């Protein structure tokens, strides 16, 4: 390990930057993003969503869904609906600079219409991609994974193996899974087990 006395602190991804190709899926720890929880101040939903739209270009998502940018440079930007007065912004590629308050200017832009709380370090993120993703998730996720019930663009909060999970369906065979970071190892193990139990050998 490098001498850290003169080099500041080093960030360690919760799963060490895990990535693994299985027969029918690829499972990757997503580390190049920031999460910001947005709570809407009382009676300020219209003002807040307008400010978020002005700052990010994205609409505030409908319940049970997430919105995303349509341009190439913001296609990984997401606003996830969490509750009637809460959402989560997923901001890609901000590096390790900071902690929580997200994209420069977001806090200023929102002002007193809402409250931001850094969530990057609260969650581990796994992206599951491939034809085996739905069969693997059937062993974990109590939600209906059929595309008619969970089309791409769906966001939901659920439980997998006793762990809280936010699941985003990014495309028919691509899912982003967020789960608390302290149990990241157990969550990875649960997802890996499901992949292996559905025939997904490495």
């Amino acid at each position: 390990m490098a001498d850290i006395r003169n080099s500041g602190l080093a960030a360690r991804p919760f799963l060490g930057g895990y990535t693994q190709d299985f027969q029918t899926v690829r499972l990757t720890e997503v580390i190049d993003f920031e999460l910001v929880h947005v709570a809407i101040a009382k009676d300020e939903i219209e003002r807040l969503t307008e400010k978020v739209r002005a700052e990010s270009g994205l609409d505030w998502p409908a319940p049970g869904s997430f919105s995303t940018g349509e341009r190439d440079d913001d296609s990984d930007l997401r606003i996830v609906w969490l509750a009637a007065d809460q959402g989560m912004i997923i901001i890609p590629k901000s590096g390790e600079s900071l902690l929580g308050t997200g994209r420069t200017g977001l806090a200023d832009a929102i002002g007193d219409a809402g409250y931001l709380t850094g969530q990057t370090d609260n969650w581990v993120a796994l992206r599951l991609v491939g034809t085996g993703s739905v069969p693997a998730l059937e062993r974990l996720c109590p939600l209906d994974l059929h595309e008619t019930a969970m089309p791409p663009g769906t966001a939901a909060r659920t439980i997998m193996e006793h762990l809280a999970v936010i699941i985003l369906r990014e495309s028919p065979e691509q899912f982003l899974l967020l789960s608390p970071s302290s149990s990241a190892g157990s969550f990875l193990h649960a997802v890996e087990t499901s992949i292996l139990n559905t025939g997904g050998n490495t």
Partner: protein
Amino acid sequence: MTGRFRIPGGLVDRTQPIGFSFNGRELSGLQGDTLASALLANGQRLVGRSFKYHRPRGILSAGPEEPNALVQLHRGARLEPNTKATVTELFAGLAATSQNHLGSLDFDLLAVNDLLSPFLTAGFYYKTFMWPKSFWEKVYEPLIRSSAGLGRLSGEADPDHYDKGFLHCDLLVIGAGPAGLSAALAAGESGARVILADEDFVMGGRLNSETHAVNGQPGHEWAARTVAELAEMETVRLMPRTTVFGAFDHGIYGVLERRRDHLPPLADGSSDSRQPRQILWHIYTKRAILASGSIERPIAFTNNDRPGIMLAGAVRAYANRFGVACGQRVAVFTNNDDGWRTAADLQDKDIDIAAVVDTRSLPDGPPIHLNARVPIHAGEEVVDTRGRRGITKLVLASGKRVRADCLAVSGGWNPSIHLSSHHGGRPVWNDNIAGFVPGERHPPNLSVAGAAGGSLTLGSAFREGTAQAAAVLDSLGYPPSRRPVPEASDEPAAISAFWHVRESRGRAWIDFQNDVTDKDVRLSHREGYRSVEHLKRYTTLGMSTDQGKTANVNGLAAMAKLSGRTIPETGTTVFRPPWTPVAIAAFAGRSRGRDFRPVRLTPSHRWAEEQGAVFVETGSWLRAQWFPRPGEHGWRQSVDREVRTTRNTAGFCDVTTLGKIDIKGTDAGTFLDRVYTGTFSTLPIGRVRYGLMLREDGIAYDDGTTARLGESHYLMTTTTANAVLVFRQLEFARQCLWPDLDVHLVSVTDGWAQFSVAGPHSRDLLRTIIDPQHDISNAAFPFMACSELTVCGGCAARLFRISFSGELAYELAVPARFGDSMIRRIAQSGLAFDAVPYGTEALGVMRIEKGHASGNELDGQTTALNLGLSAMVSTKKDFIGMTLAKRPELNRKDAVRLMGFIPVDRAAPLAAGAHFLARDADPTTENDQGWMSSAAHSPILGHDIGIGFIERGHERVGEIVRAWDAVRGRDTDVEIVSPHFLDPKGDRLRG
């Protein structure tokens, strides 16, 4: 050669012989056989011994209702008892052994029980094993236990993998017989999402066992084509080898899929060895159709349990589906037209029919025309049978004897209604079929089709399956199916209720598995058991692995006859899940061993492992308990060193596990005022305050510190144990009690790696870490200060000057991803100050020395008064728990108070759990004055100390009482002292 009883035809693959063994004897079967059909093909009629009398038993049925043919499969750790041979798919190398005999299967020494049967009637042990009293525990109970049960478990851990999963559908079709297939076909064709589940490995149900034509083709061929068509439908999921075992709330069904039971066990370590053997599915349905068919029932007559006496439909199934003759000379005993089909089908296969005995007089002649050579006995009954290890002849009521090596019995068919009554629904009696059918109260959105609903003909099964699917499609908004109902001729289905041959003089078996005979039912009735439930408990009728699938209605009939009532007047039989036994391993799934529950790791876990830390589970967390060093023997040495060093120089500890809740909003202060006993809206920015939270009933709930980081931003900490509970309680209060407040809660427990740095040198240590522009001098950053600042050249952090240990102490938090790096930095910087890491043990010792309450003290029965925290309870505002905290009982003058305790003999050990008594008092509940809640050895004081609750403790300082510890056998005199053993004025933590 695959057996001398193999006959032409059937759905078995004669090009695929399969070797297997039974009781060590090497045998051969065919692909498509069950273990039962393969045993019958090899002429193995005796397959087990009965439960109580150890009577020879053979195969009775061809399905999951089997009460007799229970065998043990596999060897070693995979040994599996009580497996039904009738549903066990044959595979190469299958090793089965019979069970429940002492000695060989042929010569079971315990068969002596049969001779003792007059003494072994129902309830015999209630009457027999009464005296002498001293024999009960040492003689009778071991004796009964050793003879109870059927098979034996391996006693080893199950080496196979199991899993669970979740599926969703518009329509779950339970059973893939004619009704189920036609329902699935209609629904699937219209685009509905359908799951078709069947416990058999070949879908088709009775179509595979009968000779009916469907749409002009053999029924089994129609079934195979339909299954193939369904498999092509994108919205249809076929699940063979899958049992729907329970109907639960909200349309959720419990389903067991057997993925590998039909395959040879995998070698441990092989590439596929982790593939789950079974999967327990939760299937969420919008609608379900129960098409589970029906089960034939036997008729009770003397010695009706001999090997070779089988259900008529099963004899037909073995001939038609498996190409096996169950005997060379078969007799049929029936009370209904269906029994005649067995005779007709066997005759077509050139099997000698010894006789057809029908209890009905048949004035219009036989319902099915048979060869003129077949002796027909109308209005006749079988009253007895002969044959030691298998039937050799039957005796008719007229005295006539008929030689036969197989007797096919049909007492009619009971609809398989089980799942329809899983929500408590009572079945109703249907005279037309002399059986129970589902009542009005089904599980919601479950409908019934075909034989399961009492429609026992093939044509009605198709009609009802299609009609029920149409109703489902209509209710869910799908277009109707255009598929015509499959054409099948309605076969005769007349029946005359007949349960029991009255002329029988010997024992007639009603429940084969539990050896319950008509005499047991009579005895039960004679002894006053009138309720069906009592009958069941007294005689064990309907218990065990088959749950009386072939016995319950006959038992009811016997009881009805005795009481002079009708069957529906006598009672009904209801069912609970599971329909067939489900292995505990399948319920456990993958949740075993280290996968039982998720584990939460602290950000310093990896570093602590490198230091050789010993870990302890605290809830889901793994925390470092202590850090042993070379030369230290035992945990006490390590913990004492960690405490001494921290108090003398410095120590550091990962305290990430404490709950952290971000509270934001213009009403955040108001919100906190309402949930804490103290006032927080007045807390200045940059300051921390200790808070106590009560339950509604006034009992202490949780405690912790809350920091104010901004005008509308607070950060609350909770105890590790209550982090989730407190968050839940606060969220409830926010959403439901005070929705008008502008306040939001976000858990940030996992987001911040937090470290306590304590001891006289802690400030100096932190100065090497915190960026120099931040002044943490005592004046600028006093006790209970907090700040957002930067460390290590710009990394954002939070610093709190709070102390659990009683020392000058801080808690430093950095984003969790930097936690590993941070602990390494603290450890490295700490070298210059002789700082040591300490674990939860030292943490506990130091907080007891300081007299801080923790989980042991906030145990759900203590109040602020008990805890000595009355001063923290505001009288100027309302808060949760305020009203009920004023109850007189909680404010008695003699209420227990949190105090300190030291042993009079300083060398004496103390332990939590001891109760306090006056020195001359007996250890009785009346004399109990309180309890020791926490105790530890104080390396600073050099002896054990404890804190605990004792009546009027604050007025009794200096008094000696007994700490009476019955669990450990200790009785120690202790002195009541202040709970603050160390630095009671707080000079250290303010220094």
